């Protein structure tokens, strides 16, 4: 889960950073000639720079291999269910509130007034995906609902004094065993 990953990376690196600062602070009181130390520090810095570059570049490239914008191309042959979602102060209008578990859904998200944010939360209130809902533009968000049950739509962009009350629900149901048009 990306949230977990983000948290772990952040905590780990912050601890490392804290240790480095503590080490420097604890070794600051003694005095050493600066010139030789500076030379060593500059050499080390080059190493530090390249380490960062070597660590970040693969992460950067790898993290871009599957962007949420391209979700549509990820399920060839599985025609997504399309749901229109329009945000208003302060409610959502969805063209359907029911989706099928495992079948991709494409939300066509826009707004009838001002900027909102269309965020989908699973049964554990974990954010599984979002896009902005803005006037004059349609943002297409593709998601696959994995679990049966009720998902929630929350507003993710501040839109005035009832922003926190802008809720909608989406029911994810198991696929019907009867062969549907999908299988043709």
């Amino acid at each position, binding site marked *: 889960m990306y949230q977990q990953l983000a948290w772990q990376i952040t905590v780990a690196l912050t601890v490392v950073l804290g240790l480095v600062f503590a080490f420097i602070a604890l070794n600051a009181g*003694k005095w050493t000639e600066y010139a030789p130390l500076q030379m060593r520090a500059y050499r080390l810095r080059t190493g530090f*720079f390249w380490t*960062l570059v070597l660590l970040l570049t693969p992460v950067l490239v790898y993290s871009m291999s599957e962007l949420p914008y391209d979700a549509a191309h990820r399920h060839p042959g599985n025609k997504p269910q399309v749901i229109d979602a329009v945000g208003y102060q302060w409610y959502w209008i969805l063209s359907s509130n029911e989706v099928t578990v495992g079948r991709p859904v494409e939300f066509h998200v826009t707004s009838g007034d001002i900027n909102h944010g269309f965020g989908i939360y699973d049964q554990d*209130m974990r954010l599984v995906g979002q896009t902005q809902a803005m006037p004059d*533009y349609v*943002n297409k968000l593709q998601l696959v609902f994995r679990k049966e049950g009720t998902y929630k739509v929350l507003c993710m962009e501040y839109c005035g004094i009832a922003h926190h009350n802008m809720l909608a629900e989406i029911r994810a149901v198991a696929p019907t065993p009867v062969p549907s048009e999908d299988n043709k």
Partner: protein
Amino acid sequence: MSVLTHTSPRAGATAGVLAYLVSAGAILLLMMVFGLAMRLEQAQIISIGANRFYELMTLHGIGMVGVAALGGAAIMWHFLRQYVQLSPALFIANLVLFLLGVVLILVGVLWGKFAGAWTFLYPMPGHSMGVWDNDAAALFMVGLLLIGTGFLLLYLDVARALIGEYGSLAHALGWPQLFLGKGKYGPPPTVVASTMVLIVNTIGIVSGASILLMMLINLYFPRFTIDPLLAKNLIYFFGHVFINATIYMAVIAVYEILPRYTQRPWPSNRVFLAAFTASTVLVIFIYPHHLLMDFAMPRWMLIMGQVISYLNGLPVLVVTMYGALTIIYRSGIKWDMASGLLLLSMFGWAAGVIPAIVDGTIVINHVMHNTLWVPGHFHTYLLLGMIAMVFGFMYYLANGSRHVRAGMLDRLSFWAFAAAGMGFTFAFLYGGLSSVPRRYAVHLPEWLAYDRIASVFAAVVIAAALVFVVRFASRLRTARGGAT
């Protein structure tokens, strides 16, 4: 007590610098109390209601950005004056315009009930659902325009002074040294940093002013509409650049004060110059990372947003943080409140860069954008970074620009500030981990525990900040006179 050498002839601060810092300190404390009130409301310990919550959120956001700008400008102006001739009149004019703007904003929010957040995202100011009217929104936006105008004047003066002294902005950025190999060292770090800030922030303020003007017209002539995506781009460009510029102004305190404490130079060598030239470009082109969830944006801009988010951390970490650590290591430095807070500020800035880069990753942003992760990362580098720089500068002046051993209360406050500050920001980050949306007046029951812990941390932070600000305010005479 050892009087530091290297101090400029004008070690004491001008009355103008002190007026900036006193204003910043007072507004800071008030805004922190508003912040605590928001946290307490989310924790359901107090109940002020959603309307009041969002009014306070609007004031806290714009007020804190203003505090950062005032504090940063005071630092930049104080030190830059050693190298170039700045106009004290324009410096004061900026403060006057600022305070006028603050009055308009306060009236717009507290009397007019404007609660459109400091980002005044178009077209919300004109669509309040009857909560505030157009005049309230206009008061807020005109207030912002006044503040922007003041800073624009200040930067124009800085530009005039730098060009007068160095010939051109390219020279002030050290390009002859960087690109043409003319000499080993460029202009002093303070000059280079000020040049970078003046370039990016002038562009930022002009963009901000243009969208504000368009929106003011739209308020009263709704048939004049604005493309909402263009408006978003302009607003976030302005917001990102403006708040970032405050840090690059404040970090001048680190470049100037740590060398005095350690008796070691902060050289403006080619690596330093390259870092600032890079930052000048990166700070301008990074802003699309605020728009990663606007799928309608051109794809290349969003990818650029992530790539530059990663790159932008490099100069900060490899040059400024690393430089501060190098200059301190085995320097025999005598710690006091000023040097301690400046070291803390380096930690805060670097620590804030980590969750910022994480969130600048598109796939992560997809599930963390506009959650509490966002205030989590920026409070880390604003509260523990930027504001710690301002506090460090305040102590430096209050101690007469020299080393003074810290007393018990100050030391206690330092550690309380550092520890509770970390606790406070990590409670936000934990909220991001738990998918709590930002800017929610009402939280679900399962989120309350962290809101409550954060409230305790926030109260401790405020107590420490109160000690810092009162200490400074009670030593204005020393600050004015410099070393006695």
